[in-house]
C-alpha cells in the first residue's frame, strides 16, 4: 500500500470526490493560484479549472455564505478557511445558518457543506494563530465535527464528509500535514461518528483525537515497556460522538485519561468526563484524568509555548499515575 502524507491524503480525497461528482467544488482564500496556504489543494486548479477551484477575496463570512447558499441550491461545496482562527469571522454563517436551516425549515433545506480548516498550535505562531475551536463547533446541534489523526483517516473521513448531507466542520492539525501513513489508492470511506481503537489495551483508556492521538500512540509504546497496557481510543469524529466506543473501553480498563490540545474550560475533555461519569461511573477505579492545553492565550516565546502545549510526556505520566493509584 502506498505511503503518503496527511496532506497528500486530503488532496487525493478532494480530487477523487471532484472527479466523480461535478457538484463538488472548493472555494476559499488562496486555494487555486497559490495552491493552498498549506498546499492541500496543490495541483487542483490545473486539473479542475477556476470554475471548480475558486480563489476568493479575504472575506470569511462571504466564503461561508457561498458555501451555505450553494449547498441550499443543491451543490456540495468544500469551503476552506485558511486557518480555524479566521473561521470565527464566519461563525454567523456556520452557527446561525448552516447548523439551523434543516431544523428551522422543518426538514426542507439541508446544507451539504464541508468547512475545512487547519487547526491547533503551530510553531511560535502566537496567540491568534495557535488555537483550537472544535469545542465551539461541537457545542452546536446541526453541525458534525471531524478531526482525523492519520493519513488513512484523513482521506476516508474527508470523502465521507463531502458525501454527507449535513454541514461538516473538518479540522486538520497544522503540525501533522507532513506525517506519513499507508493510504489505499482505491475508493474507500471512513464513516463519520465511529471511533477507532488505534491500539488495544487493558489497564487504561486514552481517549483522544487529532494530534493528541499520535502522542497517545507513542506514550502507549513507552507504557508497554513498563508493563502498562494502554488502549488508545481515537474519536476521529467529535460530533456525532461515538459514546459506545468510549464507554466500552472504559468499562474494560476501568481508567480513563481524556486528552485535548484545546483549552480545558468547557472543552471535549470536560464533555468526555461527564459522558464517562454518566455511563461508566460504577466501572471506574480512579477519577477521570484530563489532559489539555494550559488555560492561557498562546505565548510566542519558545520556552513558554512548550509549557502551554500538552504532549506525549503528559499522557505518559498521567497513565502511569492513574494505574499506580496516584490520581
Amino acid at each position, binding site marked *: 500500500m502506498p505511503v503518503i502524507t496527511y496532506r497528500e491524503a486530503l488532496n487525493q480525497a478532494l480530487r477523487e470526490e471532484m472527479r466523480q461528482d461535478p457538484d463538488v467544488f472548493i472555494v476559499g482564500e488562496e486555494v487555486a493560484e497559490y495552491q493552498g496556504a498549506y498546499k492541500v489543494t496543490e495541483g487542483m486548479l490545473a486539473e479542475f479549472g477556476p*470554475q471548480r477551484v475558486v480563489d476568493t*477575496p479575504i472575506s470569511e463570512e462571504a466564503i461561508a455564505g457561498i458555501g451555505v*447558499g450553494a449547498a441550499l*441550491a443543491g451543490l456540495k461545496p468544500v469551503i476552506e478557511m485558511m486557518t480555524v482562527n479566521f473561521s470565527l469571522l464566519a461563525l454567523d454563517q456556520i452557527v446561525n445558518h448552516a447548523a439551523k436551516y434543516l431544523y428551522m425549515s*422543518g426538514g426542507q433545506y439541508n446544507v451539504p457543506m464541508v468547512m475545512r480548516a487547519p487547526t491547533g498550535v503551530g510553531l511560535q505562531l502566537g496567540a491568534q494563530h495557535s488555537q483550537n475551536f472544535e469545542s465551539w463547533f461541537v457545542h452546536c446541534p446541526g453541525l458534525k465535527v471531524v478531526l482525523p489523526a492519520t493519513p488513512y483517516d484523513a482521506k476516508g473521513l474527508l470523502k465521507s464528509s463531502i458525501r454527507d448531507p*449535513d454541514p461538516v466542520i473538518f479540522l486538520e492539525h497544522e503540525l501533522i500535514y507532513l506525517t506519513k501513513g499507508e493510504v489505499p489508492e482505491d475508493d474507500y470511506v471512513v464513516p463519520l461518528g465511529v471511533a477507532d481503537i488505534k491500539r488495544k489495551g487493558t489497564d487504561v483508556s486514552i481517549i483522544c483525537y487529532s494530534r493528541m492521538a499520535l502522542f497517545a500512540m507513542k506514550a502507549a509504546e513507552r507504557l508497554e515497556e513498563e508493563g502498562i497496557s494502554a488502549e488508545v481510543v481515537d474519536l476521529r469524529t467529535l460530533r456525532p460522538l461515538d459514546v459506545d466506543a468510549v464507554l466500552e473501553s472504559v468499562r474494560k480498563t476501568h481508567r480513563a485519561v481524556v486528552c485535548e490540545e484545546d483549552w480545558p474550560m468547557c472543552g471535549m475533555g470536560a464533555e468526555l468526563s461527564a459522558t464517562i461519569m454518566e455511563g461508566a461511573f460504577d466501572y471506574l477505579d480512579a477519577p477521570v484524568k484530563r489532559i489539555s492545553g494550559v488555560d492561557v492565550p498562546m505565548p510566542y516565546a519558545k520556552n513558554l509555548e512548550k509549557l502551554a502545549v500538552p504532549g506525549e510526556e503528559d499522557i505518559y505520566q498521567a497513565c502511569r499515575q492513574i494505574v499506580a493509584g496516584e490520581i
Partner: protein
Amino acid sequence: MAITRSRTAEEELLQKIPREEHLQMYRMMVLIRRFEEMAGKMYMQAAIGGFCHLYIGQEAVAVGIQSALRPDDYVMGTYREHGQILAAGSDPKAVMAELFGKVTGVSRGKGGSMHLFDREKNFMGGTAIVGGNLPIAAGVGFAIKYRGGDQVCVCYFGDGAVNEGAFHESLNIAALWKLPVLFVCENNLYGMGTQVTRASAVPDLERRVVGYGIESAQVDGMDLLAIRKVAETAIQECRSGRGPFFIEAKTYRYRGHSMADPATYRTKEEVEEWRVRDPITRYEKQLLGAGILTDDDIQNVSREVDEIVEESVRFSEESPLPAPHELYTDVYAAEI
C-alpha cells in the same frame, strides 16, 4: 441608474400588463395587508408567540419585485417575511399555521414567524440575523452560475443591514464574480428604533454600493408599478450575466418594528404622511382610473381575501401541534 417616472411610463405599464396580472398583483397586496392585520390581532390574542414583524405598508415591494420573477427563481427573505412568502405564492393557510406553531405550517411549526420556508416555491427563508442572508444569496447566485442557469436570486434586507460587514463582503464578491443576485434594500427608514440618518454615514443608501461597481436604482417603495418596472430591468440585467443589481426601495412600515414595539421614536404626523401614500390605495386608484378594474372587482377581491384570511385562521386553530418526537427530527439529514 436613474429610474425616472413619468405619467406616460405609468400609463404604458398599466396598459402593457394584462388585466389578469393586475388583478393578481392587486389581490396579493390586499391579501398581505389583511393577513398581516389578522396576524397582529392573533398576536394580541396570544395565538401567535415570539416576535412578530408585520409587513403592513411595504406590500408593493414584495409584490412588485416577485411578480417579475419566474417560478424557478429564488427568493431569500428577512425576518419581516410574511409578505414575501405570500408573494411567492405559498398557501396562506400554511403560513398562518406556522405563526400558530402548528405542524401544518410551512416549516412544520419549527420555524415560526421569522423562519418561513417553502422549498416548492424556492422561498429559502426566513432568517433573523440582520444581513445574514446576503452571503447566502451570493452562494445561491454562485450555484446558478456554476450550473450555467439563467435564474436569479432575490435577496431582501432592510436599511439596517447595509451597516453589517456581511453586506459589504457579499456585494463585493457578487460583483467580482458577476453573480445573478438582485439585492433589494427595503429602506423603511428605521432599523428597529434607529432612524437611518443616525445609522448610516451616507443616508442615501444607493450611494453605499457605488464602490462595488454594481448597477443600482432607487425607487418609490409605495408605488407598485414603479417597483415592477425597475424589477423587470434589474432581473433582466441579472439574467443576462452582467452581474448583480441593487434596488433601494424607499418604503415605510406602519406598525412598530415588532408587535412589541409602540414606535415612540417617530411622530404620528410622520406615520400619517406615509399613510397618505398608501401603496394599495394608490394602485387601486390607478386601476380604477384606467378602467382596468371596476368597483365590483375591488369588492370581490376584498371579500375573497377576507375569506382566505379567515380560513387561514380556522385552519390554524384546528391544526394539531407538532408531535413531541418532532423535537428530535430535522437536526440532521443523515441517520445518526
